[in-house]
Structure formats: C-alpha cells, structure tokens
C-alpha cells in the first residue's frame, strides 16, 4: 500500500498508461509546459516529451474532435478538458461523434477515447467553472461515465477506461485532488461496471458519487452516534448505472437518500430515484429524499457557495427526516 493524494493518483495512472502502451498520449489546454490547471500532468512532459503530452489551442471542439479522430485511427488518446463547464464547447463532438460513430458505423469504427475533466464546486471558481454536469453526460447512450471518488479509483480506473473500445468520460471532482488515500500499486485495475458499498448499514441507503462521497461518509459517522446505521453507496459508474447494487441495498434498508452535487431538476439523482421507484417501490418505507445543489448558478462568495452545496449537515438532516419522520 502507498499513500498518495488523489492528484498524484491521477498522474500515476496516466504515467502507467503512457509506459504501458505507445499508442497512449494526452492532450489538452496547458497540460504540458504548465503542468495542467490542477497540476495533474506536472512533470509528464519532461518525462514523456511534447509528442505524447501535447498542449492544444483553446478550442475544446477542435482538440476533442482530434482526439476522436486519433482514437478511430488506432491511437489511445487521453483528452483533458479543464472543467466540465468548458466541455460544453465540445458537446457536439462528444455527443454527435464520439457517442454515435461506433453505432452509426455498425461497429466498424471504435472510439477508444478517454476524456478527463474536472467537475464540481468548492474552490470559489464561480459560475463558469464550478458546475457538476456529469449527469447530463450520463444521459447519452454510447458513453461510459466514471466518477472516481477514492484515491484508489483515481489510480486504477484509467487503465480499464482506455481498454474500453467506446468513449469513456472520467469526472474528477476538484475538491478531491488534495485528498490522501491508500493505493495498492500492484492492483491490475478496478472494475468500471459496479457501484460499491463504501460503508455498510441497515437503516437507510445513502447513494452518492464523486466529491459528495466524503460528505456522505462524514454524515454516516454523525448518524451512527445517533443510532442510525446508514449504508453509503458510491455509484462510481454514472452510466450505465449499476442499479443491481443500489436496488438490493434499498430493498434491505427500505429507505434512501440520494446525494448529488448537480441541480435537482433533471439530475442524476432524479434518474436514480425514478429507477428505484420502478424497481423497488414495494420495498420503500419512506419517500426517497434527495440532497442536491441549490438551483442557482454557483456563487463566487465562499459562504454563498457553501450554502449552495450538499454538505454532511444537510445529508444528516435528510436522513433523519427519512428514518424518523418528525
């Protein structure tokens, strides 16, 4: 076991991929000379050269499109987009090309592309850099959407993502980069199909992913001292959703709270909620509750930003209401 930060785990994952396969290269804005806006790729250009760690012009549509072309032509590109807000400039490429070409070509073309991007709020980067739009991407058939929430997943999800013949999007929450955790360096990779129970419990299932996982675990700890045993599930894979794990848990606890940093309306939380109602309605002993971001453009002011985000306190309150309705 090695202890490292989430940021370091992302870097080591990229290093390992570059070492393992000459077809792998990475491109994005300011990733080479500058080392990446979150310093994930710092030092990689010196180690692997400007051919494999490539700075791109400030055009998401252009370099994502180039990545799709490279993937179709046999390369294994990793494309970094600074933040999910900017990825909207490349939405046409992601949705109309990456996600559809394997389908429209009748399987003649694979698009083994990995796109990494930062997501989420908490660093006072205001309304153009802080949103959690991964739920939108989880809407699109043809994409696999991953949200590593632990250092281990940050280290090991990239390899199976690159091995996937279809496009995979990896969402790294900005508040996780400094989190430290243990990593088994010798692990051959992790599965990118299943959700995981991060904390077992009996009274309620708290479903979350990415940057909200630490908050949900903190809430579960608080609830435990109150005699409420919360099971915390890390979705890990936002598309296709592993409803088997989720539904089995809710069928056991009969209660559910979904935590999602996206806006509530039309959110991933909404999708999970709807699927639970479809599949385990008769196991529910309380209405499903959701803790989501306030429906506002993310504020810049620190106190307003915090007020807009799910936190452990709000999760605790939601769980209490579900388990012991006042």
């Amino acid at each position, binding site marked *: 076991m090695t202890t490292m930060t989430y940021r370091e785990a992302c870097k080591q994952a990229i290093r390992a991929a570059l070492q393992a396969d000459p077809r792998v290269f990475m491109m994005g804005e300011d990733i080479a000379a500058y080392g990446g806006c979150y310093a994930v790729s710092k030092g990689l250009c010196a180690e692997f050269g400007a051919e494999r760690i490539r700075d791109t012009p400030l055009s998401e549509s252009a370099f994502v499109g180039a990545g799709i072309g490279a993937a179709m032509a046999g390369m294994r590109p990793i494309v970094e987009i600074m933040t999910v807000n900017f990825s909207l400039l490349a939405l046409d490429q992601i949705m109309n090309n990456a996600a559809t070409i394997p389908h429209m070509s009748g399987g003649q073309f694979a698009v083994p592309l990995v796109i990494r991007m930062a997501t989420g709020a908490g660093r006072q980067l205001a309304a153009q850099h802080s949103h959690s739009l991964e739920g939108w991407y989880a809407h699109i058939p043809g994409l696999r959407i991953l949200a590593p929430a632990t250092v281990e997943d940050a280290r090991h999800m990239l390899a199976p993502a690159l091995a996937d013949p279809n496009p995979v999007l990896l969402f790294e929450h900005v508040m996780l980069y400094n989190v430290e955790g243990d990593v088994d360096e010798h692990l051959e990779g992790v599965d990118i199909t299943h959700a995981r129970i991060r904390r077992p419990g009996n009274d309620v299932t708290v479903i979350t992913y990415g940057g909200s996982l630490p908050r949900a675990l903190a809430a579960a700890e608080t609830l435990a001292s109150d005699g409420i045993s919360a099971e915390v599930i890390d979705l890990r894979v936002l598309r296709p959703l592993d409803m088997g794990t989720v539904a089995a848990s809710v069928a056991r606890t*009969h209660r559910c709270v979904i935590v999602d940093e996206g806006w509530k309306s039309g959110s991933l939380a909404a999708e999970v909620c709807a699927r639970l109602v479809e599949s385990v*309605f*008769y*196991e*529910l*002993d*309380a209405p499903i509750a959701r803790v989501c971001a306030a429906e506002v453009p993310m504020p810049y002011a620190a106190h307003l930003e915090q007020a807009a985000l799910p936190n452990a306190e709000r999760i605790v309150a939601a769980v209490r*209401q579900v388990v012991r*309705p*006042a």
Partner: protein
Amino acid sequence: MPSLGPDMESARVVEWLVKPGDAVRRGDVIVVVETDKGAIEIEVFEDAVVEALVAPLDTELAVGAVLARLRTKGESEHQASPDTPKAQALPVAPAPAFRPEPPSVSTARLDAGAPRGATDSGHQRASPAARKRAADLGLDLATLHGSGPGGAVLLADLAGLGGVSRGRRAGGFDAAAMRRVIGTAMARAKREIPHYYLGQQISMAAALDWLGRANENRSVEARLLPAALLLRAVGLALTKAPSLNGYYEDGAFRAGEGIHVGWAVALRGGGLVAPAIHDVDKLNIDALMSALRDVVARARRGGLRRSEMVDATVTVTSLGERGADTVQPIIHPPQVAMIGFGRIVERPWAVAGQVQVQPVIGVSLAADHRVSDGHLGSQFLSEIERLLNAPESL
C-alpha cells in the same frame, strides 16, 4: 407505558393479552412489555372495556406513551358498533387539521387522538413496504395504527404482528442493557446514599430444627426452605423498624405503605432483578414460601408484573448455599435499606460457656444514614436474631 423504575426510559410491547372489545378488571394482566430487566406483565388499573390497542408491537416506546385506549364505566361509546374494524378507529379528537397532502409531517406519534392514517377519501396511508408486508401477513391496514407522517403505517408498525409470539419472552432481556441499568443504579447509590453497615452472626440451630420438623408433614412441593424463614423474620422485624422501610426522595424520608420486600434473584446468564413480594409481614410462612417460589420462577423465565418491579420498599439478598459468608449490600435507590444473608455454614459457637458446632448465618444491614442510625440498625438485627431463635413465633 408505565415506568417500572427510576432508571427506565422506554420498553417494547411484545404481546397483547387482550383485544379490542374485551372487558378487563383492575389488576388483570393485559400486556407484556420487554424492558432492560426482561419481560414484564402490565396490569390494568381500572375496570374497563378495551377500545383500541394503540402501541405497535416490538417498537421502543418512551415511558408515558399510550399503549391502549380503554373505556371505563360511564364513558360513552365512541362507536356505534364494536364489531366492524372501522368503528374501532380512535376517537378522532378535536378535528385535526388533517389534509391528505402534502404530508405536513409531525403528526401521529401515538398521541391521544392522533389522526388515523385514513384520509378523507378512505385511503389508508401506508408505505409501499408496509402495504406489502401487511398483505403478506393477511392484516387489514385499516385496523392498524400508523406512526408515520400523516398517520401512515410503516414497517415498524407491523413488526411482530401476525406470527411472532411468545417465543420472544424466553430469556427476553438484554444482558448488556441490564448491566448498564444496574451500573447506573449502583453508581447513584454509592454517590448519593451515605451508607452505614452492620453485621451479625446468628445461630440457625433452632431455626433449622424447627424447619426439619415442619417439613416432615409437608409434601415435597410445599416444603419450606430457610429463605422463607429469613424473609419472614425480616418482614416482622421491619414492623418495629419503620425507618428502614420506605423511600428517600426529594430530601425527605417517606415510609413505605406496607412491607414489600424486593427479593434479589440472580438470573441465569447474568444480571439481577429484585421483584417485590408484597405484605411480607402479613403472610404466613407457607404463603410466603409459595410467593417466593413463584416470583423467583417468573423472574427467571420472564413474566414479572409491573407492581412487582416498582413496589419494593426494602430489598433482601440471600446468597444461598453456594454464596459467601457475608455480603455488604448496596442500597437500591430510592430505598433506604438492604439486608443481606450469607450462606448457612457450621461454625464453633459458644453456648453457656461450652463450644458447640452450630449452623451459623451472617446477616448484614446497609442503611441510609440520612434516615436512620446504627443504633436502630443494631436493634433491627437483634430482632431478626431473636425471631430466628424462636422459629415457632414465625
């Protein structure tokens, strides 16, 4: 939910022994609750007709929670016909501001007059899971009390219904919880009660002689044990030492109304209860013996009554054959005294200048110095000795 002692905060209903429509008389056992001290039978306080069973089974309920609704003589019936389940609905108290939706939360937690889960349209609120389980168990939701928002029936309200029965009562106490309760009570005793301790050795020769003769004419089941003599002696001696019998509460002593001796019973698997044997001074030796047998048996298998849990005015512990020679008891608050007996053992005993071997028992007294002094305590122990030396007077 009655309080069964100062340390009790909550308990669970494990079995109803009556059903709506039953006529009950004061003193009838109507329900069994499970506390930290095991399963306890609860008696009803009044002659009445059971109108509705309110408390759900197997749900932790705070002291003071409503268990059932009774109609005493003279109270008007709340329903036209007691036959239909619908009619057994709780009296819907002063028109609750109850809207079918949204569930304004915060309603029916077993409050008096809480609205049932049925909405105006007659639809019984229930969680999907509770609805499914009720159907599996063959229960009619309309007959159930919902503890959820807007009176909704939840899974918890069905726990223990339709299937689970007396099985639970066997060994139905939580050893860890009981240990906590004992710890709390004893810590309080040590902290608050200024104990004084007295001890005395008493010859049991006369008492055991008498017992041997008395048992010659008794059947095996009716045989007297030394414990009955000890208990009888304590009961009679207490009539002369009223300041050892009662409670110290709110800074003052309150004498017990009657001599109700809590008899400490060690439970198999650990733990201890001291159910009260009522009016020990008024029972003859045979009645006392059978009361002892009965209460010990019920303490061990579960089935003590509420009154037995709360009425003791003083406590006796007798260590029995395999016990130590002496015990220094810790008073059970709010009582003010506890009497301890060691085992009966043969010892050299001086009688009229001669040493004989006699059966001897060590008796000890722990008493509350806020209420009595060692002088009175000594007189009390001497009286026990006098009585045991004159067993025919017992």
